[in-house]
């Protein structure tokens, strides 16, 4: 049967693999792996434990950077970090409640669904646990009782991007929403539309690259007047470049978020610019600000939200930023 033959094949493959190690280019850079792995909680020498609760959908590159930033801050400051996440609002509320129950020193949380999280945040503030918000909830964090906020203003980010593409001559841009019902993605597109009234939204299935590509390709075939495509995450930007090539469209492409490939494409001129909200900084600042508050009573932002974006990455500054994307910090 196949699986018995399979056993032999595994053995052969393993031998071939071992023999062929390091014979091919394009692989991992073998010099650098010892210092990789930037996370991990240090011994917790400060004695503080900080809970970090997000609405991350598992496997999202953006959130991975937020988390990397938070872990680096925890390491730098000797804080024990407890990371947890759930995209479902009611489950995220339970995670915050868990943190309160386990009597952490501070809580950093995203406030993506303020109404659903208000109760849990209140139990935290009632228990005298300081809370900071990050990434989402810029308009609500204060009334919920959070002390500080770190993130991008999505509407402002959309507007800034809109101004930019309007200056570039965009009349009929396409705004690609890869996650149905996401408030922050809708806010970006709405911001875009406020500056370029011809903006049209399109919904794609962000979990299937082939589907994203063919949907955008179909849209480009249906409407030849589309002159700009705005994607809202880095993977969709890659898919869009493929679709554009297939459809023979000359529309320009810009995106939110940054990764190695987007950075490379910005450098190569295939992507006009990226709107970066600096997720690594969001995670880092949220943890550091709690640390400073606990240790020193500091109030970062002076009662106002601290904006980590929109930070534009384009040809003018890509040379400086490109190396950081390879470290998973930008």
């Amino acid at each position, binding site marked *: 049967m196949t699986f018995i033959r399979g056993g032999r094949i595994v053995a052969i493959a393993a031998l071939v693999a071992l023999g062929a190690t390091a014979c091919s280019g*394009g692989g*991992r850079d073998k010099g650098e792996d010892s210092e990789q792995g930037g996370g991990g909680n240090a011994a917790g020498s400060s004695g503080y434990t900080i809970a970090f609760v997000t609405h991350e959908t598992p496997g999202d590159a953006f959130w991975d950077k937020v988390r990397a930033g938070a872990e680096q801050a925890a390491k730098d400051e000797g804080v024990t970090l407890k990371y947890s996440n759930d995209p479902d609002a009611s489950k995220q509320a339970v995670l915050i409640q868990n943190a309160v129950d386990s009597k952490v020193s501070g809580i950093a949380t995203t406030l993506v669904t303020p109404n659903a999280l208000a109760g849990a945040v209140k139990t935290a503030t009632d228990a005298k646990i300081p809370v900071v918000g990050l990434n989402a909830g810029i308009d609500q964090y204060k009334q919920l009782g959070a002390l500080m906020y770190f993130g991008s203003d999505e509407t402002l980010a959309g507007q800034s991007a809109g101004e930019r593409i309007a200056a570039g001559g965009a009349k009929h841009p396409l705004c690609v929403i890869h996650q149905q019902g996401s408030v922050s993605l809708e806010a970006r597109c709405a911001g875009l539309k406020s500056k370029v009234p011809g903006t049209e939204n399109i919904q794609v299935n962000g979990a299937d690259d082939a589907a994203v590509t063919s949907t955008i390709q179909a849209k480009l075939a249906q409407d030849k007047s589309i002159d700009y495509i705005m994607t809202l995450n880095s993977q969709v930007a*890659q898919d869009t470049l493929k679709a554009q090539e297939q459809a023979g469209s000359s529309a320009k492409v810009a995106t939110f978020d940054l990764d190695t490939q987007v950075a490379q494409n910005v450098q190569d001129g295939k992507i006009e610019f990226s709107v970066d909200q600096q997720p690594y900084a969001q995670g880092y600042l949220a943890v550091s600000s709690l640390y400073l508050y606990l240790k020193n009573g500091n109030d970062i932002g002076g009662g106002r939200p601290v904006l980590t974006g929109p930070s534009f990455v384009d040809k003018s500054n890509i040379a400086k930023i490109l190396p950081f994307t390879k470290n998973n910090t930008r």
Partner: protein
Amino acid sequence: MSHDVQAARPAPAAPETPAASRRPGLGNRLLLRPEVGALVAALVIFLFFLVAAPAFRSMESFFTVLYQASTIGIVAVGVGLLMIGGEFDLSAGVITTSAGLVTSMFSWWFGVNLWVGALLSLIFCLAVGFLNGWLVMRTGIPSFLITLGTFFVLQGANLGVTKLVTNSVTSPDISQIAGFSSLGAVFSSNFGLGPVTVWITVLWWLLFVALATWILQRARSGNWIYAVGGSPESARAVGVPVVRTKIGLFMAVSFLGWFVGMHTLFRFNTLQAGNGVGNEFLYIIAAVVGGTLLTGGFGNAAGVAIGAFIFGMTNLGIVYAGWDPNWFKAFLGVMLLLAVLVNLYVKRMATARRTA
């Protein structure tokens, strides 16, 4: 793979398929073919979009639809066979991502030729399929539960391992590794045919459909598949190797999942570890819309292919028509319900005739 269940053992004639056991009039015979309802639906939807969506009328659009259908349709062929055999596989969506991740990360980490990574990934996927089938047969727990477990294990492992190996949740860019172009030619090349671009997945899809049709109609293992899906006990009683047939079907699904995973990897160079979730339902929908009975024992490969084509057509037709694609899932749901109703009707007719 499906070939494996063809091993020689003289088996007495398995119970015949319902469609072949009667000789009613032509109209009824047509109605009793699983793909006819889907074919009618496909034609109606096709004509509908021809009228409603000007951009749908070009050949380029038609081939984009075929491409979209092929990436769903290839795995759906296997899922359809498995469902005819009376089982489900909920891990079929994420295994496409697992397949790509194993290939890319193994080759990237060790710096070896991608062919080695692809082969290793194939073995990995076949092993997952084997494990699914073996656990189902060994424990008697419904495949729905077993493969739900596999689904979660793979989903978590995709994330966990990717993060461990690459320190991010995106797989590394493999386009510079040896073997990329040759594998790309096999799995994700395209060629121009007049004004249109034909993706190789469309050809592979047709090939797999033809192969599955041949197995179901002509090969002895085809009879076995209908038999184990219709009634495992009587199948076993007449000497059909039930365990081997079902395990083979699970392995066929994961083979095809591997295939689509290779396509995605070599077309897009990198993968996000969270991808693929949800596609398992699209495969099942394609199979059901194509006339496969959820209870097993009935259906065929052409029907499943038509189901996948309907999926691709609706998905993109809405975009070609310039409508709000937020509604797409609602359309899909309505179609699924209609298909199930048609299937129910057909099944009632079939049983009524048998008892008459």
